[in-house]
């Protein structure tokens, strides 16, 4: 198992050396970073904590990182962790009262949705600092690209592989911890879990922070890779739902599910758009929607979940 994992990582890390075309390299990086966000989301999603607001944490992390770089010259190598920490702090600020006051289920989902929209609108409204809806670009530093984390495709590929492996490792570690069992119990019956001594709020907070942290990490790295930040694609409903779709399509109950889902949704979107091209406007989202519904109807536990069940 561990050997297979290392072999897989080695193959992934070696791929760019064999002259993978740039466009596929680009999609690969986008996929892995989006897989990090999806995996992060599923870490809490699989315990019944459904958030529609992970965009909020991504937006906070990405903008913190880029603003620190542009205005204070702080390297993203520090700015990124700082941004992710701030994103997690925002998650704590939002989640703690939710858990204490028992805002659950659809109510929790909608509260997080509102939080995502607030962050998006604030980024737009604070346009003097953030560039508003025009977006912002991190200041280029061609002489000092490494320090500025402006790595180009190969560098980012390896960074993405690393971060992705870290996300999976964390998942694996959670699965083996007591917390996984506690959270399963909580997701089944919160009161019963509390009555057998599980510290409900604490466990939920922990998984929420980890989840928000990975989403923020994946999203902010994506912004750094593209060297472009935009409120629409980093905060708000659009990105939040995109993450959920990916996690769900792949299967949020298995470790590789969100990754497969991210790869699947990106591949599907690209293929549909490119193959329908500009001939039938609207056909791509239509087919995407149909496939999504069919997937949920016939593979309710996602692609990976389906394979696991058959085995």
């Amino acid at each position, binding site marked *: 198992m561990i050997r297979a994992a290392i072999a897989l990582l080695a193959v992934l890390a070696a791929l760019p050396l064999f002259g993978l075309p740039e466009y596929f390299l680009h999609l690969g990086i986008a996929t892995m970073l989006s897989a990090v966000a999806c995996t992060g989301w599923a870490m809490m999603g699989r315990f019944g904590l459904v958030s529609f607001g992970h965009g909020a944490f991504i937006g906070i992390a990405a903008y913190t990182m880029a603003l620190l770089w542009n205005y204070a010259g702080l390297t993203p190598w520090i700015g990124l962790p700082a941004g992710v920490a701030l994103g997690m702090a925002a998650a704590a600020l939002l989640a703690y009262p939710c858990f204490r006051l028992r805002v659950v289920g659809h109510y929790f989902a909608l509260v997080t949705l509102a939080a995502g929209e607030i962050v998006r609108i604030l980024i737009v409204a604070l346009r003097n600092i953030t560039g508003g809806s025009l977006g912002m670009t991190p200041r280029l530093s061609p002489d000092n690209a490494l320090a500025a984390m402006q790595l180009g495709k190969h560098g980012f590929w390896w960074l993405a592989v690393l971060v992705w492996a870290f996300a999976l490792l964390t998942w694996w570690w959670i699965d083996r911890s007591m917390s996984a069992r506690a959270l399963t119990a909580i997701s089944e019956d919160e009161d019963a879990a509390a009555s057998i001594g599980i510290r409900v709020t604490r466990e939920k907070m922990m998984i929420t922070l980890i989840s928000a942290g990975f989403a923020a990490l994946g999203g902010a790295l994506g912004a750094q890779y593209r060297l472009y930040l935009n409120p629409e694609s980093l905060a708000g409903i659009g990105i939040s739902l995109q993450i959920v779709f990916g996690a769900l399509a792949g299967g949020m109950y298995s470790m590789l599910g969100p990754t497969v889902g991210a790869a699947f949704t990106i591949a599907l979107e690209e293929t549909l758009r490119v193959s329908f091209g500009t001939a039938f406007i609207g056909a791509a*989202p239509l087919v995407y929607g149909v496939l999504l519904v069919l997937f949920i109807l016939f593979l309710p536990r996602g692609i990976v979940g389906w394979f696991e069940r058959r085995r």
Partner: protein
Amino acid sequence: MDPFLLEAIVNGILLGGVFALPVLGLNLVFGVVDVVWLCYAELVMVGMYCVWFLHTQAGWPLSLAFAACLPVVAMLGLLLHLLVVKPLLGSPPITQVLATGGVLFILQGGAMLTFGTDFRSLGVEMPPMEVGEIFVSGTKLVAFVAALVSAAGLWAFLKFTYVGTAIRAIARDREVMPLMGVDPQRIYLVASAVGGGLAGLAACLLVVQLDVHPFIGLSFGPITFMICVMGGLGNMLGGFLAAFLMGVIISTGGFWWNTEMSYVVAFVFFIVVMFARPRGLFAR
């Protein structure tokens, strides 16, 4: 009182009228079937296209186009239930929500394929009314009254018919319903059709105020969900009142601060309400 502030408040209440019907429909479906239709605003969009097409392209009189819109969208609600929601009734809520999210893409894509991406306008208007220094849009006022009348009609249906009473009962206890001879599946169908019909009704009221395009749902979809939750999911009266509250908050927030930030004010208010009243502002 500042007449302009008063006007902003009146406008907020009228805006609440815009939100009220979708909120009622969404709440009805949620209360009965226990599923959130993420594509609800897109059903409204289809209804708006339906009215636009029948009136401006097929040349039907407006009243007839309105009358046709209701059954069409109601039918769509039924189909949505039968094809997507029903097979997922036992699944986790997130799966159900996401499946209806898939339908959202289908409806948007379908609208683009059928009608293109242009903005379509009905071109119907009514003269404004002037009361003192306050101006009130005639169109909005009529839409507002229509929303109130429809809400009252819905209330009467739920209050005075057997099916309506069963709908209110099922929201609390679905397992016991067969003991009364009620087939929950049939009630789900009725609720889905009525929920769809309300989307159709909302479409009729919106199409005279807003241009229709495939993405119009994005304009009022998210806020509709929030209002629904704020009033208490499944709580019709709560949702109805919350619609007006939210309308006034957006309107006066825009008046005192600015139009952009008014939504931040509204969303922050929503979150605070959720913390204070986790089951909705008007939960019993």
